[in-house]
């Protein structure tokens, strides 16, 4: 036995580190339109290959092609473009506000706008998302007030959450947006539970769980897949693979598995991969999975292949762990530019109208920001009361909290 060479530990490494030349040659990109669209009652066993491909609709010439195309009208696409542009503008202003000290922290969506904006349009009123911190497009595409989002970010006197949560951890039951946890992955199994409840009550509403590539390593992810598989819960389980979990490349969480979508195969859950930077593809796949859930065919696992162009958060500097030019080399392009080019190609949009829309959107976001700042920012102006800190721990304040509130003098 002793003549065996010693064992060695395998620690995966990304293809390139800072200073190197970005390399995405390992990301296999099928042609747009090349992946078939199965019927929604398909036997999951027969579409296992979809977990290893990428469903794409927009080709390099800006045309919508293939069996997943043709679902959205010009008006719907123009609206989608406006949602993504609004989210991007909102992010830029809030990043700046954070740098100016108006809030403690911010997380942007740059490059990932299509995922949440398009998915939201495939849902019905009453459906419930269990989001992470990078799906604010779910709120914007649902028409949530930008001022209220900012009130939350600034933790001001109008903060719907009374200053109790960090910036961007919104909550809106009315618009199907579950309160965001700062802990990762916990919401994934909760989405399955919500969906099970809907089935128990013979309701018609469905749930959508959200998780990042890195957090799929948490036990909650696996519990969610087990429960979704066992009870055929009406839920869409979304993995946003933006390649990076703070500084950790997706290979650390993915391990020896071919793709994140492939995690679903062992559970018998249909698993699809989709071009996350293609608004039309995201919408088409979302609609397929949502219809499947609503018609009681059970869960679907969807991996959105995208790229986090910006930093993880305002507390992060990606130059420390990946090449600065890596985002330029990302082979799936920019979701806003791709949809813009498609609309121009369709003859319903132009560079001039795009510029005009950018100015209008900026104007709207700046107006909203002025209004929100009028209600205070983190360190200036109106803020939630200290008394609010003691409220809402329980439906009814127990005696010990009442005593503590009195001690605090509020």
């Amino acid at each position, binding site marked *: 036995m002793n003549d065996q060479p010693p064992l060695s530990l395998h620690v995966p490494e990304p293809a390139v580190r800072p200073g190197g030349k970005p390399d995405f040659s390992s990301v296999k990109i099928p042609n747009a339109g090349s992946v078939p669209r199965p019927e929604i009652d398909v036997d999951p066993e027969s579409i296992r290959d979809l977990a290893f491909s990428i469903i794409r609709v927009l080709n390099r010439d800006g045309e919508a092609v293939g069996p997943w195309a043709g679902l959205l009208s010009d008006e719907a696409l123009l609206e989608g473009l406006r949602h993504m542009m609004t989210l991007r503008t909102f992010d830029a202003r809030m990043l700046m506000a954070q740098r100016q000290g108006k809030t403690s922290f911010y997380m942007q969506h740059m490059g990932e706008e299509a995922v949440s904006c398009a998915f939201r349009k495939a849902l019905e009123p009453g459906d*419930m998302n*269990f989001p992470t911190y990078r799906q604010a497009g779910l709120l914007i595409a649902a028409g949530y007030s930008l001022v209220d989002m900012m009130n939350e970010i600034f933790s001001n006197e109008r903060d*719907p*959450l*009374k200053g*109790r*949560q960090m910036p961007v*951890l919104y*909550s*809106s*039951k009315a618009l199907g947006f*579950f*309160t965001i*946890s700062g*802990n990762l992955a*916990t919401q*994934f*199994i*909760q*989405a*399955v*539970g*919500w*969906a*099970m*409840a*809907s*089935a*128990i*009550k013979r309701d018609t509403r469905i*749930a959508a769980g959200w998780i990042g590539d890195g957090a799929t390593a948490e*036990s*909650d992810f696996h*519990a*969610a897949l*087990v*429960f979704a598989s*066992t009870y055929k819960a009406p839920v869409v389980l979304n993995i946003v693979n933006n390649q990076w979990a703070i500084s950790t490349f997706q290979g650390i969480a993915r391990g020896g598995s071919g793709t994140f979508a492939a995690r679903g195969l062992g559970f018998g859950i249909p698993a699809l991969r989709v071009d996350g930077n293609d608004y039309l593809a995201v919408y088409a796949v979302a609609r397929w999975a949502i219809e499947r859930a609503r018609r009681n065919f059970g869960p679907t696992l969807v991996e959105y292949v995208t790229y986090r162009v910006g930093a993880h958060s305002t507390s992060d500097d990606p130059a420390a762990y990946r090449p600065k030019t890596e985002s330029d080399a990302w082979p799936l392009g920019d979701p806003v530019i791709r949809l813009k080019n498609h609309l121009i190609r369709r003859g319903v949009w132009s560079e001039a109208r795009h510029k005009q829309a950018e100015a209008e959107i900026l104007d709207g976001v700046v107006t909203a920001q002025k209004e929100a700042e009028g209600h205070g920012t983190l360190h200036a102006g109106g803020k939630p009361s200290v008394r609010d800190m003691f409220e*809402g*721990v*329980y*439906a009814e304040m*127990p*005696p*010990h909290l009442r005593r503590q509130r009195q001690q605090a003098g509020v």
Partner: protein
Amino acid sequence: MPRKTMVEAIRDGMDVMMERDDNVVIFGEDVGYFGGVFRATQGLQAKYGKSRCFDTPISELGIVGAAIGMAAYGLRPCVEVQFADYMYPAYDQIVSEAARLRYRSNGDFTCPLVVRMPTGGGISGGQTHSQSPEALFTHVSGLKTVVPSNPKDAKGLLIASIEDPDPVIFLEPKRLYNGPFDGHHDRPITPWSKHELGEVPEGHYRVPLGQAVIRREGAALTVLAYGTMVYVAMAAAAETGVDAEIIDLRSLLPLDLEAIVASVRKTGRCVIVHEATLTSGFGAELSALVQENCFFELEAPVRRVTGWDTPYPHAQEWDYFPGPERVGRAFLEVVSGDQ
């Protein structure tokens, strides 16, 4: 009035609530077809159907996480974690999620959830079937923690817990399931059918959370106890002749501080007993509260009698368990001032 075991009373509480409220659902490991390893859910699946009482995969995280999603939807899940010792995989869901939904969403989402867990030792369960983790829950803002000591209370407290708008950890002392165990493990136990607290009213009634009850009035010292330790303290009082006033806390959070303070001010002495380990146990909180509220009435230091700070052992179970002899000795020392 019919007499029931504690398991039957708990089952009756769930039955009553399932009958009254379609939103009450029950699930956990082995709880569906089989009716639970302690039989607490026996017959409920047959009576209410598989969509309201069902078996789950072995995943405490999954059970509690799914239940939180259901509670957010508007159901009232009452789930079972087979042994309190198994709850650790679910702890993040309990602490960071169930306990926080109301607060973090400013009431947009709430979590009316009950997590039932058999707790405590005395059943040769070793370190993984004997723990008393109540202090891990009372330390968490947003949770309520309940420990019944008899069938009548168990049913009423469970109904109150299921109706509560916030998450409740419902710890069932498993050694009390069949009778009021007083720590004399070498003697036969009295079954609940021979005990007045085995008389369980029919139908719906509540025992409100946050109300302690005096099990034995006395003048010499106050005993703060819950669950199995109530009977150990009763035995210790009988065997030592110390005129102890024994308070069954029933609910640790919310806590009936008024009842505690009134009693200690009367007796001037206080002994706290629990089965859980000593350091940072719930007794530490009780001791601090007694000191803060009754300092000038105290005639002796507050005394804690608890499990030792070791894992719960198998062969040495009765050396670990704070039985009537150890509790009685503490009574005598506190009363005599010989500490």
